[in-house]
């Protein structure tokens, strides 16, 4: 038993943290994240250069990491810096290529890892509400290729992504795991309409409408109708990444709130001397440690073969960081008082991100129910 990160991971974290603090400070970040593009192409390329994306993939696939803890370390740093770059898309699409891609399909990995190709998972739909199997978008065979019709919702950086990983039903009906297939679709495919918009917490997303989008046979990733298992695995990576990002963001919100309690004076004394506030802060701090433990458990479980063990740990972590993330956001705002309500205060943007993470890949209720269901199946 040992809870120390390896030297390599500590160096990676140091490099990332230094880069973020120099290039991605909160003012710069807010300009980027709330700007028209929602991220910085120049800085994204630099993130790739210092290894933030390569660390997400194993060596045999051209990366230099790829273990649960590598992903966790990277995203915790991104969370500390509130980084709004399309790295989550790179992770999930990259892992899908590794899991199910042919040699030709995997060629796209190099561009993703280099930050030259922005990739996005187009899976959620306007009515799917976190349900993995609830896919209505359909693909029908036409000659050698496929024709895709349907809608995808809140696709991260879907408006400018070069490469979309699209889930579509080739058999069965919405709600069934069987019959879901995955397709690699270029962002500029004919018949694809993209409506991009800003996210509340910074960054961009898009609604996508597929109208008779024609793709070739080589677009199918993995086996026809068996995409759901791949979706579950790549969603698992997304869960670990988001949970790690949340813990990074929690740490900063917590530290800034603690600093405020130490320095803000009312009635002639620092407000941190009031027991009513001390106890709320103490609770917050111990819950953050519980969230950190949940992420460690998830990182340790992600490469486990036993599905129930792996997926339960991931859902447990998402439930934990979801509920604790909201707690940290709400308490940090409350403990700051009025200033906590302002755009000017960095903490406020952490609070926004923490709450919005709960809305990605399933919220705390969704994952609590999933945790129960997986336990029943086991």
């Amino acid at each position, binding site marked *: 038993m040992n*809870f120390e*990160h390896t030297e390599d991971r500590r160096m990676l974290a140091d490099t990332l943290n230094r880069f973020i603090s120099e290039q991605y400070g909160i003012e710069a970040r807010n300009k980027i994240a709330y700007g028209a593009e929602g991220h910085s192409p120049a800085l994204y390329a630099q993130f790739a250069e210092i290894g933030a994306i390569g660390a997400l993939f194993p060596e045999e696939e051209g990366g230099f990491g790829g273990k649960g803890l590598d992903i966790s370390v990277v995203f915790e740093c991104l969370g500390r810096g509130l980084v709004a770059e399309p790295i989550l898309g790179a992770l999930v699409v990259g892992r899908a290529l590794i899991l199910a891609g042919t040699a030709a399909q995997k060629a796209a990995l190099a561009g993703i890892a280099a930050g030259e190709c922005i990739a996005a998972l187009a899976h959620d739909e306007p009515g799917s509400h976190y349900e993995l199997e609830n896919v209505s978008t359909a693909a029908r065979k036409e000659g050698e290729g496929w024709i895709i019709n349907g809608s995808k919702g809140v696709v991260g950086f879907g408006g400018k992504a070069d490469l979309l990983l699209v889930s579509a039903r080739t058999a069965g009906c919405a709600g069934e795991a069987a019959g879901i297939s995955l397709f690699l679709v270029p962002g500029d495919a004919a018949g694809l309409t993209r409506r991009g918009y800003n996210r509340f917490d910074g960054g961009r997303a898009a609604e996508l409408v597929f109208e008779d989008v024609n793709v070739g046979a080589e677009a199918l990733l993995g086996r026809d109708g068996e995409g759901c298992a791949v979706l579950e695995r790549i969603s698992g990576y997304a869960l670990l990444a988001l949970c790690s990002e949340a813990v990074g963001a929690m740490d900063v919100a917590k530290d800034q709130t603690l600093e405020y309690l130490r320095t803000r004076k009312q009635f002639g004394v620092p407000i941190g001397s009031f027991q009513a506030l001390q106890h709320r802060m103490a609770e917050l701090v111990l819950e953050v440690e519980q969230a950190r433990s949940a992420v460690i458990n998830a990182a340790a479980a992600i490469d486990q073969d036993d599905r129930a063990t792996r997926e339960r740990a991931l859902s447990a972590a998402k439930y934990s960081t979801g509920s604790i993330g909201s707690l940290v956001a709400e308490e940090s705002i409350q403990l700051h008082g009025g200033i906590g309500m302002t755009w000017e205060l960095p903490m406020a943007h952490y609070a926004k991100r923490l709450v919005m993470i709960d809305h990605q890949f399933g919220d705390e209720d969704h994952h*609590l129910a999933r945790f129960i269901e997986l336990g029943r199946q086991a």
Partner: protein
Amino acid sequence: MDLQFTAEESAFREEVRAFLKARLPAALARKVRNNLHLSKEDMESWHAVLNERGWLANHWPAQYGGPGWGAVQRFIFENECALADAPRLVPFGINMLGPVLIKYGSDAQKQHWLPRILDGRDWWCQGYSEPGSGSDLASVKTTAVRVSDAAGDHYIVNGQKTWTTLGQHANMIFCLVRTDKDVKPQQGISFLLVDMKTPGVEVRPIITLDGEHEVNEVFFTDVKVPAENLVGEENKGWTYAKYLLTYERTNIAGVGFSVAGLERLKIAADRMQYKGKPLSQDPFFAARMARVEIDLENMKTTNLRVIAAAADAAAADAAAAGGGVPGAESSMLKIKGTEIRQEIFSLMRRAMGPYAAPYIEAARDLEYGEPLVGPQEAVSAAAAYFNHRKLSIFGGSNEIQKNIISKMILGL
């Protein structure tokens, strides 16, 4: 980072499991599992079994009869004992007084008292709380006045202690007493060892809300205590008292107890019927069980992290006493650990439905020969739930733990 135990640690766990399988009597485990009454002999017999194996005083250095374990081994041992439904050791001699004597006692005191703790000749109880000193422990009022006469130096002790757990079985009590009233409260306290058979010591039971006799009041009227029973220096008792409290909080998370309790709860919830299905399939009940299960999974890792950090600190500073006892972080473990345990007791009570209400005290004896009213778990579900409300009160209430976190970890 590696969550798995090393080969050595796993081998140790197997050794503990084998020992428990061979030496923990099934009847005793059944009593513990079902929250039945434990007799004084039950507790003494388990104490003796552990002593025989050399695993009793697991915090003590080897030279005083401890097994020489590190923090991880202690955790594994405590955890396995809880999972096997071993009785909780009466901690006052082994886990509380022992470490204080080892650090602050004279050679004569160590030689005299430590072997008697190990072999069970002395049953110690704790004279800390008073009617006016609960969370504000430094306000103790029980007095000890030093006198000299022909028989030598003595203290004359007057006052009252309370919440004295299992004091009815004890022959010795360690007390915080006031030896100087004219200084700051913390500076006038001494640490005194008192023979409970001395004239003027009177033990009166306190019956708790579950009808049990677990705690007592102890009255001292002109009790004559030999001066050699003073531990360390006069008026330095607060330092020793605080040192003792850090040991009181080890294993405070009680992860093993919670794991065992959750297993029992799941079995009960699968068996109890609600709306024609097992209660465990009711969405609301299932959600409450899942929440506590996730909290517990997180807690296990938090506990291991704290232990690993303490072990690292001990390794870095070999001279540090205690061999890796966690500091203020144990306050976090105490709060969350007790919340989890209490929630499990609460869910077990709920799981019993109307059968939480019937209470036949005699059914809490293993020898009870009548048919039970309701399921086995119902015999003690309400009593165990109420009894364990103490978890968030004793050992420094959870609110006091938050004060400690604020001061020691957050610097507020």
